[in-house]
């Protein structure tokens, strides 16, 4: 939601800078006035009734927000900073500069560059560098532990797999590029417009676009089918906003284009930039210099709507278009678990180093003790006699031998650092993301949107969220505004029976029925009064009120056909959902906006079509917080209608007349906002001739001014929006989304603190707080509204004292609602943006944190986007707890990026939030299954997987290490080198990945039923230092069993190295798989296949390796397996190794069961009695009631 959205006009942010024309002609309004009074009817309505040869219609307006655009375009662009485009002369445009062609390439590689670039990118990962260094070390002849090929193999496999994945993705990108590049567009050539492929379009060419076509490149509009040069575009591909936006062609170019002799001129504009809302440049046509702003350019990817055609000149092509420049990847964050894992990896590295040190020191001691025998030892024999004179063979002296032993042991023990874990984790996250995306519970039917995983490396963080920062509008609420009630002239119309009539209000046009697309509940009493006409005083005010609602906006009515030829629907398109709601409301009460052009609007007032000339329009800006429109009415009067936020409106309302009405309205406003309605105040004033002339003069001077035009226009607007008489106020309901109260309740039970950060008014925020069950009646509210630092400090300190006493008091008194997270009376903190300005300044942060962390609910109202990020940062800085931010609008972007996990709601308000987010989904309530179910699972799976991978690598390394102690510390391995290499890649990797993707400790039903189970993530139950050290201890035991059982069984026997090596290999592989099998919670056929399949595959591999005659262990496994002791060893190892872990596990589970354990047992043995009421509530989260 946007920061200004407390104001219904709030959606006019600077996204839509507009108005053209420094040259406005006063004649237009004169002419318009001449035609005033002609009640337009029938056919003339649908056509534009202007004579093109005559004076040209113009729009009057001001727009504060585009001040940048104006001032910038006036600034001189120096030639170095500018690109020069000769209109309709692509040759000349392209001769000096190398502008990009319109070919787009999203593919990263070509066939030639694939190998080097892909390798380069892959080696950005530290893990691969480690692999590489080890492999290189192994190539040195003194250190060659493994054969050359075997040592490179694991790295090669990993590189290959990644390369294939990258190549496939790139191929898909290439294919879509190709489709895109070969689309057709019409380009002006020697004989009119001709079809041309997109990729051949060049800068400077003139392009014609028809309705519903997509723009092939960024073009400056020259002319459109609308005589005023208006074109409507849909930017859904660019920013996801589905409403229509207006773009304008300059008057001068419209004239030139209509003269049929082509067009020439020079455009000087800025270099390509990513800012899709900014553009500056100027155009020289016929010696005149015209400024160009963001409203004159249409970007690649937009669709032309509601405009028959538009002609423009290409200024940015291909990769230089703003759409392509914005085509950046997802943000990258690192998960908490991974950070912890790195700590443990450090331990393992230290462990690795100490193992290697032990080996090299012992080797040194051995060499020292046997230094006199080295020449004679049959198994060492230092001297070589081959060349006659004896010389040392492969012996470089004592010092070097130690160094070499150390490095060799690093090579042998390399998998102690679980490098493959990083790759497995990536695969697992992809798998988990797949299941999250596929989950029906996270699919939003309303917007037909699936869950999106945009960041692939923080899945498991979802299981440890402690703070949720939520936006309100569009996140908790639907951001679909519905007009609820009105206070007109001091009378509150909402008590009356409201109902939806059969078809709502409709009008007849050419025998067809036109009706508004959305039905609005109408108050019967108000409807009757509005129908009664403006004879009575009351009726007059009601008439003016609805006229204001219908006219004072920037809504464009669009008529759409329906399947019934007799019925057409009017769809009101506009940027502000509030305005849409107001226009639909006006239509429901008989004031139907039928047509809007730049010069006039047509409103059907109870069947009578009336034409109003729009003489001036002061659009919304965030300083004034109101907008106004100057209408020339059919009865030859000129009126200014103003609507805006209550605070800004009461300051411009004539206070001296109608004091009672103002008071009544104020109290109504208070009532409205306390039930959660968004309010607007409407006022009007008649303008007399001199006032109007004065305004017009000032307006024209201002709009032709070159410098500071925006400020001037704002001043003029403020001058005319004055001394208004109040008409009334409207209340618009921002409906709560489905399941929000239940979702918030679940989150709170899960121990997650929900903070709401909103730009809305305090009253609105509190009322939404109540309706969403965020606030409950038993909470004590602490409200902080301050205007200075000192007072802010004081109230914070007071609040801390209050909250402390509240909590200690009730800590004694028995409280049944312990689940809410705090003992005793829950405290809710409500703080507004002004106070936050002082707090986030500095010293007070600590106090706010103290206060807020003790509160169960925090509600921040009237906060600016950056403040939202500031609050998130406040928590992030001071605690270790995970934060999650969820929002749907551009103003939430900073917060989403700041939080550990950012979630975008793909809702009504554009896609900036989604683009910045890590995950995107359709509804707020999906947060519950996302966190409680998927988050919990992902955390549990990932935590276990990391521990297991540490274990599985360490146990193998330790087995190797024990053997080294029996080989004179010469780093020999009994285990065949192929088996060592395949161990982490093939023998034991698949089951852990499969289990980490598929295993579930609890069913989703149980997890949703008991949100408290989410606490296991908060308590870090699945991964912590204690578990790590316990696992390592277990590893030590298991490796010892694996090694020493065969050692004692085959002591003083004929067993050969390869045979016992095969036994160790099989024992390790079967043991680690059994270990995994012992911890698997759900055995599906896939898990069965993975685990038993791995064991079988290992046996097959060992047999195959031993069937290769050139290897030393040829046929060894068969000779081993013939002996009974082989099988006895294997069985003994498995049972003895697993026994301690099994006993500890049973004892732990039985004596001190964790919540997850009990819930699992309950799931199996069915304690269905306490399903109870909770179930019903959960269902509303998962399956919305069908309204």
């Amino acid at each position, binding site marked *: 939601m946007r920061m200004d959205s407390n104001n219904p006009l709030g959606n006019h942010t600077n996204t839509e800078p507009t108005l053209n024309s420094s040259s406005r002609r006063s004649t237009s309004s004169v002419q318009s006035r001449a035609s005033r009074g002609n009640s337009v009817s029938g056919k003339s309505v649908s056509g534009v009734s202007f004579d093109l040869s005559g004076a040209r219609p113009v729009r009057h307006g001001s727009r504060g927000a585009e001040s940048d655009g104006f001032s910038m375009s006036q600034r001189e662009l120096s030639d170095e900073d500018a690109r020069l485009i000769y209109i309709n002369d692509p040759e000349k445009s392209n001769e000096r500069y190398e502008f990009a062609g319109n070919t787009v390439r999203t593919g990263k590689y070509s066939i030639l560059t694939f190998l080097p670039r892909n390798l380069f990118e892959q080696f950005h990962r530290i893990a691969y560098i480690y692999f590489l260094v080890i492999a290189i070390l192994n190539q040195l002849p003194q250190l060659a532990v493994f054969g050359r090929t075997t040592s490179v193999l694991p790295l090669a496999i990993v590189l290959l797999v990644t390369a294939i994945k990258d190549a496939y993705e790139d191929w898909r990108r290439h294919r879509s590029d190709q489709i895109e590049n070969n689309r057709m567009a019409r380009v002006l050539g020697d004989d009119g417009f001709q079809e041309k492929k997109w990729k051949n379009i060049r800068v400077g060419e003139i392009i014609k676009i028809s309705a519903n076509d997509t723009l092939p490149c960024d073009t400056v509009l020259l002319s459109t089918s609308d005589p005023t040069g208006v074109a409507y575009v849909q930017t859904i591909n660019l920013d996801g906003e589905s409403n229509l936006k207006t773009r304008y062609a300059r008057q001068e170019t419209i004239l030139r284009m209509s003269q049929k002799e082509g067009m020439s001129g020079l455009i000087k504009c800025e270099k390509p930039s990513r800012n899709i809302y900014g553009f500056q440049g100027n155009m020289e046509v016929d010696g005149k210099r015209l400024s160009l702003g963001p409203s004159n350019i249409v970007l690649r990817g937009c669709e032309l709507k509601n405009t028959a055609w538009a002609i423009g000149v290409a200024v940015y092509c291909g990769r230089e278009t703003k759409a392509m420049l914005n085509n950046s990847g997802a943000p990258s964050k690192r998960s908490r678990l991974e950070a912890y894992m790195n700590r443990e990896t450090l331990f393992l590295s230290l462990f690795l180093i100490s193992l290697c040190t032990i080996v090299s020191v012992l080797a040194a001691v051995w060499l020292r003790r046997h230094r006199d025998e080295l020449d004679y030892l049959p198994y060492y024999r230092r001297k070589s006699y081959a060349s006659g004179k004896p010389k040392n063979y492969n012996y470089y002296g004592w010092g070097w031998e130690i160094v070499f032993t150390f490095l060799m042991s690093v090579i042998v023990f390399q998998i102690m650092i679980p490098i493959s874990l990083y790759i497995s984790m990536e695969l697992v996250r992809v798998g988990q993301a797949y299941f999250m995306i596929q989950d029906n519970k996270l699919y939003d039917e309303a917007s037909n949107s699936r869950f999106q995983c945009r960041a692939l490396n923080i899945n498991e963080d979802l299981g440890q969220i402690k703070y949720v920062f939520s936006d309100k509008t569009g996140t908790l609420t639907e951001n679909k505004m519905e007009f609820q009630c009105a206070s007109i002239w001091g009378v509150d119309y909402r008590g009356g029976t409201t109902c939806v009539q059969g078809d709502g209000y409709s009008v007849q046009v050419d025998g067809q029925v036109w009706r508004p697309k959305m039905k609005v509940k109408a108050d019967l009493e108000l409807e009757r009064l509005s129908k009664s006409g403006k004879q009575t005083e009351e009726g007059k005010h009601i008439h003016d009120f609805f006229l204001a609602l219908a006219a004072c906006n920037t809504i464009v009515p669009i008529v759409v056909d329906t*399947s019934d030829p007799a019925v057409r629907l009017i769809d009101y398109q506009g940027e502000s959902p509030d305005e849409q709601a107001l226009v639909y409301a006006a239509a429901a009460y008989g004031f139907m906006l039928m047509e809007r052009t730049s010069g006039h609007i047509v409103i059907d007032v109870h069947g009578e079509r009336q034409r109003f000339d729009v003489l001036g329009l002061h659009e919304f800006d965030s300083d004034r917080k109101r907008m106004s429109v100057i209408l020339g009415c059919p009865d030859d009067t000129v009126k200014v209608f103003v609507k805006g936020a209550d605070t800004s409106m009461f300051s411009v309302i004539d206070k001296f007349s109608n004091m009672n009405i103002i008071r009544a309205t104020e109290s109504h406003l208070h009532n409205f906002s306390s039930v959660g309605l968004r309010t607007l105040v409407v006022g009007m004033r008649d303008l007399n001739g001199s006032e109007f002339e004065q305004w017009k003069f000032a307006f024209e001077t201002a709009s032709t001014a070159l410098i500071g035009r925006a400020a001037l226009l704002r001043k003029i607007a403020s001058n005319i929006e004055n001394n208004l008489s109040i008409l009334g106020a409207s209340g618009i309901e921002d409906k709560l989304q489905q399941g929000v109260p239940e979702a918030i309740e679940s989150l709170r039970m899960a121990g997650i603190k929900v903070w709401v950060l909103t730009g809305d008014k305090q009253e609105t925020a509190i009322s939404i707080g109540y309706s969403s069950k965020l606030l409950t009646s038993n909470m004590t509210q602490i409200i902080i509204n301050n205007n200075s630092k000192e007072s802010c400090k004081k109230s914070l300190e007071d609040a801390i004292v209050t909250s402390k006493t509240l909590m200690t008091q009730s800590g004694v008194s028995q409280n049944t609602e312990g*689940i809410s997270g705090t003992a005793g009376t829950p405290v809710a903190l409500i703080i507004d943006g002004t106070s936050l300005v002082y707090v986030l300044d500095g010293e007070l942060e600590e106090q706010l944190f103290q206060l807020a962390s003790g509160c169960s609910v925090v509600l921040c109202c009237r906060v600016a986007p950056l403040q939202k990020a500031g609050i998130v940062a406040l928590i992030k800085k001071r605690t270790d707890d995970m934060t999650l931010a969820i929002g749907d609008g551009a103003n939430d972007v900073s917060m989403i990026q700041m939080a550990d996990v950012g979630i975008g709601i793909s809702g009504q308000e554009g896609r900036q939030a989604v683009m910045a987010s890590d995950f995107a989904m359709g509804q707020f309530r999906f947060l519950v299954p996302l966190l409680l179910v998927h988050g919990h699972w992902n955390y549990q799976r990932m935590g276990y997987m990391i521990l297991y991978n540490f274990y599985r690598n360490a146990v193998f390394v330790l087995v190797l290490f024990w053997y080294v102690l029996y080989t004179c510390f*010469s780093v020999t391995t009994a285990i065949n080198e192929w088996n060592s290499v395949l161990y982490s890649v093939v023998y034991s990797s698949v089951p852990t990945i499969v289990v980490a993707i598929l295993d579930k400790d609890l069913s989703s039903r149980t997890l949703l039923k008991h949100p408290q189970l989410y*606490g296991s993530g908060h308590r870090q139950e699945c991964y912590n230092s204690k578990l790590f050290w316990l696992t390592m201890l277990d590893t030590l035991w298991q490796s010892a069993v694996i090694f020493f059982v065969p050692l004692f069984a085959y002591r003083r026997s004929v067993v050969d190295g390869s045979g016992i090596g095969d036994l160790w290999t099989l024992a390790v592989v079967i043991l680690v798989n059994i270990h995994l099998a012992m911890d698997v919670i759900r055995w599906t056929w896939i898990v069965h296949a993975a685990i038993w399949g791995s064991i079988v595959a290992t046996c097959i591999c060992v047999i195959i390796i031993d069937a290769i005659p050139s290897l030393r262990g040829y046929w060894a496994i068969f000779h081993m397996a013939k002996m*009974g002791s082989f099988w006895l060893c294997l069985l003994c190892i498995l049972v003895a190794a697993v026994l301690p872990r099994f006993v500890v596990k049973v004892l732990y589970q039985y004596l001190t069961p964790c919540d997850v354990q009990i819930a699992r047992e309950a799931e199996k043995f*069915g304690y269905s009695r306490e399903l109870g009421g909770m179930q019903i509530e959960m269902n509303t989260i998962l399956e919305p009631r069908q309204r």
Partner: protein
Amino acid sequence: MDPNGGSSSAGAADGASDPAAARRRHSKKPKYSRFTQQELPACKPILTPGWVISSFIFVGIIFIPIGLASLFASERVVEIVHRYDKDCVPASYRNDMLAYIQSNETNKTCTRTFLVPKQMKSPVYIYYQLDNFYQNHRRYVKSRSDKQLRSRASENDTSSCDPEDVTANKSAIVPCGLIAWSLFNDTYGFSVNNTLLGVSKKNIAWKSDQQHKFGSDVYPKNFQSGGLIGGAKLNSSIPLSQQVDLIVWMRTAALPTFRKLYGKIEVDLEANSELTVVIENNYNTYSFGGKKKLVLSTTSWIGGKNDFLGIAYITLGGLSLFLAISFLLIYIIKPRPLGDPTFLSWNRNPAGHFN
């Protein structure tokens, strides 16, 4: 909210069925399958007391008999171990055994006599056992050329055989490498009650090695001709595939104390009969203090005489039974109904849980 969803919900009677169908067609709703919803049928084993106790009892019941059986088998193996490296050095050389063994003049023959304790059924396996001989040392293990051993064509493939690869005049040694060079060369002759016993060398080497690892066209060449003699010499007219002692020796042992098969006696040895062994004590283990032993042993289904596995199995089985009883007691003394929600942390301790 319109149940069919969306901002595009047309309110009026504009043929609601059509767009709804279209929407269903374009719906991105994930296809339902038990796999994608993670609801595959699954077995969810839980460690219930019954399961735990019965699995321990099961292990106990299986392991103890296995242990007993292997102990029994091991007991039935008759094994005679005789260390001779010291005793076979004449008293005059006891102080300088190295000189004795390195000298060409000394008489290396040595006769030892001992009683057969129990009847030994044929075949009786003859092993030599070396202690403190690291056949698994890195330098040693690598010092061989499998290619050279296998075929005559790669006779000169001696690169991995350092430091025993070529002779001083650069011609290849076959078989090359430290392993072959250090071939064991003590010999044993047996007689019982003054009748000579034949020592069979049949099948003492692996068939697989004879057939595929040692070539039948590869003959020893330049072997033990260098400055330093490591061990046995080979008859250069017999191909490597028939040199069974070499083949046995070259299957390097896993551990520093190892036995190698020397031969078999194919007759039964009666109890208390007197066995005389004539030993040619040639092999030099004196330089590094290695022991040499002669071992005569029968065999069983678990191999040689080794009580370790039997004891291990009995211990494990006993431990399992003990654990079964302990868990039984725990379950009786401290019963906890499985899945009892009153044990959940938020039910036990309603306040102050989340801190």
